[in-house]
């Protein structure tokens, strides 16, 4: 029982770590929307015209937010009077894709499938957005516009203060609910219980996935990694699509937000329709998109992270939990968590000592300074630069996330050595720590080649596949603590890696 509760806490904290960077982005975008005002925000989303839904979809595709980071943005859209259908369309699309994850999917899944998935998401967003506005008219809310803020440093400080206030607002309760929902799910799913939940021949796989996916929290990147894994393991493509839309797009916090804003009945009706529509599309595209020539592995580890982290036989659960949390915390997540901590601290102080917003009033009271060698840029220039900047930043992020081949090999050499040595010396925990890191670098190697137009030969692809299979077999041996097998597989992996590395010699 203890291990189940500790497991749920671990899953909640892991979700919080993954969500931290995109929640900060969500707070920043929401604060900017609040500061630029109701009318401009409305204009960005097409002023409730026929363009609103495709525009919401397009912006959602570009912004790097998850389903939790989308909540404060949705709240601001609501305050700005954007139609309910458009808000939900944005909320559903923004977490599905971002440029880095799409690039990953294009390389490691079937590109045709990812393009079809993208267009299916557009169809879902358009249909569900239209359905909402058709069934529940007059769902937009008008609020008093916030007064203008003088340009310059005051406006920047105002954005920071708004972010801080938002970080302790009710919106964060929805975010917390989403995180707790992800943890609670693990109470119902024993460790490894979803390994055969998405088999291609299982007709119920997409429906089962729909049920699990709603409380699931997955960042766009995590979802895309799972999707690629499902393609490589020959799992159900219909289940993969269901997981992408419902697992990445929704969470319990978002459902609570919709219920709070529009009522429980409307939320249940809309989610019911959404699930039905997603399943119809999933069953329709699943068969034609199934990858040819893939041997079904009969199981998948893609969903292990949604199940309880500790199975039977774990002796010191609290120590294992601490180690798991420590291992899964990435540097950018730590920085984001510290950032959120600072925002919460500032927001908490402002809530206690300045509930009326005197500080913002002070910032707004100053008149615009006279400029000597500077000009005030009109809104459309700032908007245009921001949009272009977002596109450029996305491209740069792709190149940073998928570095050059030489950099990848330099990292992978260390990772491979660590993994092989821990396997041969029977250091199970260290070995299992390096397994996902090794897999990650192998995937980056493939995406980097695609991004830099250095196509991999079939020979190189086969060598990579052999290393991937070697890692997977070794992972099982490490999990089962089989000393002789782990040693043998570790040595084989070392040889396979060396051969894979040699296949790239002279190709850099």
């Amino acid at each position, binding site marked *: 029982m203890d291990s189940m509760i500790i497991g749920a806490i671990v899953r909640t904290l892991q979700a919080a770590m993954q969500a931290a960077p995109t929640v900060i982005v969500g707070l920043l975008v929401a604060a900017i929307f609040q500061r630029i005002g109701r009318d401009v925000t409305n204009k960005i989303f097409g002023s409730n015209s026929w363009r609103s839904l495709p525009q919401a979809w397009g912006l959602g595709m570009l912004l790097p937010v998850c389903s939790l980071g989308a909540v404060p943005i949705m709240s601001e859209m609501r305050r700005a009077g954007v139609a309910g259908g458009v808000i939900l369309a944005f909320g559903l699309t923004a977490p599905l894709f971002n440029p880095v994850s799409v690039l990953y999917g294009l390389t490691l899944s079937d590109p045709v499938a990812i393009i079809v998935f993208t267009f299916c998401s557009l169809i879902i967003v358009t249909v569900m957005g239209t359905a909402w506005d058709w069934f529940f008219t007059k769902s937009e809310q008008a609020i008093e516009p916030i007064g203008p803020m003088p340009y310059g440093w005051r406006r920047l400080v105002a954005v920071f203060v708004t972010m801080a206030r938002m970080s302790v607002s009710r919106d964060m309760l929805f975010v917390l609910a989403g995180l707790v929902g992800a943890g609670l799910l693990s109470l119902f799913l024993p460790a490894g219980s979803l*390994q055969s939940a998405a088999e291609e021949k299982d007709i119920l796989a997409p429906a089962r996935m729909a049920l699990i996916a709603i409380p699931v929290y997955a960042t766009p990147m995590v979802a895309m990694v799972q999707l690629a894994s499902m393609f490589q393991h020959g799992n159900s493509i219909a289940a993969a699509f269901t997981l992408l839309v419902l697992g990445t797009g929704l969470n319990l916090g978002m459902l609570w937000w919709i219920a709070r804003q529009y009522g429980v009945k409307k939320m249940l009706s809309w989610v019911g329709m959404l699930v039905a529509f997603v399943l119809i599309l999933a069953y329709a595209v699943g068969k034609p998109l199934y990858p040819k020539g893939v041997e079904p592995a009969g199981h998948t580890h893609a969903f292990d992270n949604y199940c309880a982290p500790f199975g039977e036989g774990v002796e010191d659960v609290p120590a294992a939990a601490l180690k798991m949390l420590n291992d899964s915390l990435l540097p950018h997540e730590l920085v984001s968590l510290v950032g959120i901590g600072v925002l919460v601290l500032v927001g908490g102080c402002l809530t206690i000592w300045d509930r009326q917003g005197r500080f913002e009033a002070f910032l707004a009271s100053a008149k615009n300074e006279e400029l000597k060698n500077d000009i005030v840029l009109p809104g459309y220039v700032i908007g245009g630069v921001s949009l272009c900047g977002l596109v450029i930043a996305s491209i740069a992020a792709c190149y940073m996330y998928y570095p050059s081949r030489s950099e990848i090999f330099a990292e992978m050499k260390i990772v491979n050595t660590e993994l092989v040595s821990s396997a041969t010396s029977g250091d199970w925990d260290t070995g299992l720590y390096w397994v996902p890191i090794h897999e990650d670098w192998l995937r980056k190697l493939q995406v980097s080649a695609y991004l830099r137009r250095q196509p991999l030969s079939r020979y190189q692809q086969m060598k990579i596949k052999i290393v991937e299979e070697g890692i997977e*077999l070794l992972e099982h041996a490490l999990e089962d603590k089989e000393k002789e097998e782990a040693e043998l597989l570790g040595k084989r992996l070392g040889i396979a890696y060396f*051969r894979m590395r040699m296949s790239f010699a002279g190709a850099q």
Partner: protein
Amino acid sequence: MAKTNKHSQSNRLGRCLCALVWLSIALLGSSMLGCQKSASQEEAHHIPAHLPANFEQALVRIEQLVAHVKDGAALEQKPTEVTVETELRDVVRWLPELAAQSDLKEVDWNVVDEATRDLIDSFSQAKEPPEKWLIQGETLANIAQLPQQLAAVREKYRAMQVPDVVEDAESENQP
């Protein structure tokens, strides 16, 4: 008035649809949670019993299976998990991977890849089990040619193999 009626009708329709979906979700949920597996039932990787140990053994097995299917030659080792036709298809399919698990150079591996690519593509397009199509038409003839087509690569592969010193020493010590 007509507009209000239309709206209330669509609302009713929406509510019915929604109730139906949630009911199905609840039923599915109860059935799913009722058949959870425990952690001890974790899936293991199944390595087929007929997976050859290496490229050389794969080619030997192809020769044996082709001789069995074509001329009725007796098989020393009969497949246990699958039929002869399925084993033959699988071994051909595994050839490029087995060849890549060696120090063969890219140019030599490409010979294996090119010799098997069309065959493997045709395997993945087949909708029926191999017993129904493998011994018919050109497929079996193409498979039968593989050992000959890959003779040069096979020689290079053999030349690369280092004898297992420990194993050899042990076999020498045995009476």
